[in-house]
């Protein structure tokens, strides 16, 4: 009786949620309930969509697995390869994502705890994604003597965050580093990989402004 009517509009609505909702509302108003055929059809659509998304996810998983496998193959025959593989992963992602660490654990046959034990021991490995831009103050002794503390304070006030944090808009990550070996140009500041020497507190604002304009240009 009413079956002919809903079939085609439901098919139409498969990629348009608003239209589907309209249709259901319409049916409810007209009949006071949603016919079984229609709800079955909706469930089927949900399955189709989920299947499509699952396929995308498994594709992602495969890329992730392939990436990890690639790193592992490169170091397969080397003893004590874990740290070198972690370096490769961090170079690729900027940090060590949890899924990657889990995949690595499966791939190497090493317990996840052992991998995390190593990651958390070394300062160099990060568990959080880095900001879009990075500002790093060298806090080696030479820089310390020449006022890196003032630079850190200035950055704290300007950014409103402390070392090791990222601004709420995830744009600027602020950190300190032990020593970058540029003691001749102390105090040194690394702005997105570029080292600036003999930095004065009055110049900090300028460096941040240049990062912010870069950010807008990218956006």
């Amino acid at each position: 009786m009413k079956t002919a009517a809903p079939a085609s509009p439901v098919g139409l609505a498969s990629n348009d949620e608003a239209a589907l909702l309209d249709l259901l509302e319409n049916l409810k108003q007209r009949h006071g309930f949603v016919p079984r055929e229609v709800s079955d059809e909706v469930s089927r659509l949900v399955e189709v969509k989920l299947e499509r998304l699952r396929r995308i996810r498994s594709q992602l998983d495969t890329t992730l697995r392939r990436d990890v496998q690639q790193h592992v193959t490169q170091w397969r025959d080397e003893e004590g390869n874990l740290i070198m593989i972690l370096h490769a992963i961090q170079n690729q992602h900027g940090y060590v994502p949890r899924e990657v660490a889990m995949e690595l654990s499966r791939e190497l046959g090493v317990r996840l705890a052992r991998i995390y034990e190593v990651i958390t021991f070394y300062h160099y490995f990060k568990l959080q994604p880095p900001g879009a831009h990075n500002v790093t103050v060298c806090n080696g002794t030479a820089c310390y003597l020449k006022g890196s503390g003032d630079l850190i304070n200035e950055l704290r006030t300007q950014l409103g965050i402390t070392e090791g944090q990222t601004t709420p808009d995830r744009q600027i990550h602020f950190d300190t580093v032990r020593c970058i070996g540029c003691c001749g140009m102390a105090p040194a500041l690394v702005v997105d990989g570029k080292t600036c020497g003999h930095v004065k507190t009055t110049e900090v604002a300028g460096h941040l402004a240049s990062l912010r304009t870069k950010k807008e240009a990218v956006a």
Partner: protein
Amino acid sequence: MKTLSRQDLEAIAATAPGTPAEWIRVQLDTGGIAAGAETVHAALTQGCAERGLVIALRRAGSFGYSFADPVVEVQVAGMPRILYGRITPELVDRILDEHVRGHRLLEDHVIATRRRSVALTATVTQLLVRDTGPEAGNKSEFFQSSFIEELKRRGLADQVQVVRAFDLGIYDEGAVVQLLPEAVTYANVLAPDVARIVAESIAGGKVIDDLLWTTPDKQMRIVLRNCGEVDPDSLEDTVHHAGGYQGLRRALFDRTPEEVIAEMKASGLRGRGGAGFPTWMKWQLTRAQPAPQRYVICNGDEGDPGAFMDRSVLESDPHSVLEGMMIAAYAMGASKGYFYIRAEYPRAVERIDRAIQQAREHGLLGRNILGSDFSFEAKIRLGAGAFVCGEETALIASIEGKRGSPSPRPPYPSVRGLWEMPTAINNVETLACVPAILTHGGAWFAGFGTETSKGTKVFAVTGKVRNAQLVEVPMGTTLREIIHEVCGGVLDGRELKAVQTGGPSGGVIPAPHLDTPVSYETLQQLGSIMGSGGMLVMDQTDSMVEVAKFYLKFCVDESCGKCAPCRIGGYQLLQILDRISRGRGNAGDLALVRRICQAMQKASLCGLGQTAPNPVLSTLRYFGEEYQAFIEGGPSYARKVSRAASTKAAERASPAVAEAPATSNP
């Protein structure tokens, strides 16, 4: 690519090194690149192309003059080799037009050679002047114009160019004049001497003895012999122009492994990583251990903040370190080597990696090296930012892919090290010495230095010093000579308060002890250590309590937490120091500090914990009154001190206000 053979190396050793007559060399190490050396190099390439100039443009590592980065060296036919400091891309046009084409030096950028002559045989072509007296009354320009006037009067103005130099390597000796090309140098020149110099030396070709600067340069470059002189990315350059792999050839063909060790024993070389263990003994012990496999490790985990000599050597002369490692491996019967380098030094890693590849391509790594029965492979392992990994057993754990926790010794690595096999761990600088010792002989090396500390040592002199740079001096040179004569004394002419050596494991040496000759033993007697070679100069404005706190904080952060004395002791010590520095210390605190320090020194598992109290103890020993003042003065005194420090910071920043807008608008 062509494989090198024993005969090739012998042939190269027999021929005198020939260098092309004309080249420009840019010093591209991390420090130089940070100061803009890459853009200078690019500008030079472009400038040469625009002008159609055919001149070899070369890359090199760093000479060690960090204060002058970026550094460019120019060799043009008929002129002495000239080193220019603080070169910007804007100056590149002037180098090409004035120097390369016009044969005239640039004003204010020349760094004079440290190899000074006392005899005058060639005609003087250039004259460098600089007033090295107090900066306020700088009379360089006055002397320059006086010389020009005098030369004009004698009709010599066209033959001799008078240039203001950027740095002459002589400080606080009044006006200094250097006559090029031979680098005859006069110091404490007064206005009446101008006419004499022109008449007697320039026109007459005679040396004026009463003005002559005869003090030879304190430096002696063995480790840094090739730094800034070779292209670190080129095996050919190292082999053909710097005697690269000749030490290896001698070791493989002229000596048995035992003889190599004997040569090392004769040289008296001791580990340059800090502890000063005799290198030959380390090799001997590793060799004596029966095992199917032995390893040699190069420790390039330069974690000491404020030290950069290992980085500089790895970046500027990677082949020498590799060669040193191969000789070590031959001597102790190892067939595998690892470079353990900090991940924070990407350029050093890249250059060592390239050096290994090139060596492999030329048959210097792999099986039957140079046709001998010695086989060797080298690999790189990256550190990941843990100071404790400079400690032998922790470093081994890290190479094995584990947490860098130290383990108790014995067994020492020479008995049971990497993968349970006998392992020798040598510092970068130690390995860089080895080829030179094999080439020139152990006795030659032992000719430098003191009774117990032989050879030379590289120091990274930084902090409140006029010219922050790498210095290589024979052991036994005094701290005063290093800081005042080589590096030009304290920044802004202030008074020196103390010198810190050995980084977080070392201590401070106060001004009254500046005349101490540097050696492993003397520094230890003063409560510091040689360490890897960081040397930080501190002036009167630096608070010693703060400095001790800084180093202690570093060690507390870096403690691996395995043993209680280091983990808990360090933290408690830091709490007490923090309390004192806020003026909330009490009378018993200093005694308590000493007791905790003692416990840490005696009971800690590894070197990190055992030496962490050193900065505290040595500041307490020499500057105890500063601690007392904080305790007796209370919070009001502490506030006064910190306020004084922040006004000083403001003063430091204020002269920059005028120039700030220019730099802050990129």
